[in-house]
């Protein structure tokens, strides 16, 4: 499984997939928003946590179809399916690779982009923490969506239609925790609920995703 993780990481970095692209997309979204809503610092500061969360979610979405698609096309997914590690493990490792290559850079970059939007100082910490807790759920839910649509020729658009509604609870709790933290309010409850969604997704969704993969490989 470690070998699989190393392979996926090497492929993602060398093949120039979602690695830099998601980050660049995130930067562009953060840059476009002030053009759209105007440069007033107060307005930007107010909407910054929400924009950063939505941007991270979309940037994460952008590279989801690469989780299984390439391996499905060149046949290595069939080999992985017959390999001695359980399918659930394969799915979990692939989601982890996606998180490391796509989501983690977003988490690290988010406070910097927050500075672009005049986010107040506690915001840097809270946007980092909420994204760090929440993005594993985004990657795992995305892996499930990618497993559902892996057999389709043009599954990208369908994938976003399937995955975005599933992202709603994570987005709500994540953005809420960040907003409350920045405002100096108590935000333990949304943080715990966010962590709960991540824990449950990581624990349960590999089973659903590998069921979908098995159906698609049949």
């Amino acid at each position, binding site marked *: 499984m470690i070998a699989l993780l190393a392979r996926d990481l090497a492929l993602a970095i060398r093949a120039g997939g979602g690695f830099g692209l998601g980050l660049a997309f995130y930067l562009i979204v953060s840059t476009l928003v002030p053009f759209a809503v105007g440069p007033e610092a107060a307005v930007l500061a107010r909407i910054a946590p929400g924009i950063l969360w939505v941007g991270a979610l979309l940037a994460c979405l952008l590279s989801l179809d690469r989780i299984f698609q390439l391996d499905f096309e060149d046949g290595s997914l069939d080999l992985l399916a017959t390999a001695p590690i359980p399918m659930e493990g394969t799915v979990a490792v692939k989601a982890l690779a996606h998180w490391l290559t796509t989501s983690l850079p977003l988490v690290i970059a988010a406070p910097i982009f927050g500075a672009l939007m005049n986010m107040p100082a506690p915001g840097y910490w809270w946007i980092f923490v909420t994204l760090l807790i929440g993005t594993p759920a985004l990657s795992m839910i995305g892996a*499930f969506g990618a497993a*559902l649509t892996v057999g389709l020729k043009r599954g990208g658009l369908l994938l976003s239609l399937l995955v975005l509604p599933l992202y709603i*609870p994570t987005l709500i709790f994540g953005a809420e925790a960040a907003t409350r933290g920045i405002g100096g309010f108590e935000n333990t409850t949304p943080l715990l609920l966010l962590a709960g969604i991540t824990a449950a997704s990581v624990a349960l969704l590999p089973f659903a995703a590998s069921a979908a993969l098995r159906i698609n490989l049949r």
Partner: protein
Amino acid sequence: MSDMHRTKQARDRWNFLWEWANPVKFMWFSGRVLPWLIAATVISLVASLVWGFFFTPEAINFGSSVKIIYVHVPTATVAVSAWFMMLVASLIWLIRRHHVSALAAKAAAPVGMVMTLAALATGAMWGQPMWGTWWAWDPRLTSFLILFLFYLGYMALWAAIENPDTAADLTSVLAVVGSVFAFLSRYAVNFWNQGLHQGATLSLDKEENIADSYWIPLVIGIGGFMLFFVTMVFIRTRTEIRLRRIHALELRERMADA
């Protein structure tokens, strides 16, 4: 020994349920029942709508706009029930592999989606004179919008996959996972709105404090829309089964030609 006997008896008693999963039996049964279902649907819908629209008093605070309740509440009830029906049908397909079940789930989705849309649209029409706005990010409204998105995704997945069995499997998995997330969203939305605004003032429990003169046609209306849903699902499932048969016949002919 008597225990084992009894459980076997209980199993036999429920076995008849699964016999309807046989497409031939389903076609026979649904064909016999459909005329009655259609008649009951028409009678109850006409009764509730005519009664509700023309023979109920106008409410003091609401005027005549209150009468849209006879479409709004039943469609909303059916929209949620339809998703539950799809969840149960999907589970039956995943566990027992009854084709009729998968086809019934497929047949129910567009009906449920239209009901969701109708509930949203009538709600907007009602909200405009009452709240002064077509749309508010109230927990109930938002949950219905999310439910609509789930219906969209489910139907899009059915449409995208060519192999019918693969499509049935994948949509069933999606229905199960989606139900968990839809449920989660319902409570997340409640949390979110209370976090930003005062508690929900718009979602009064309408059925609790409604007078009898509105209540009876409303119950008939809910029953009527439920019957309408069942009728539509029966008709659409029959169509799906016939489509499968045509497909099988075509395949057989092509095999004979070759």
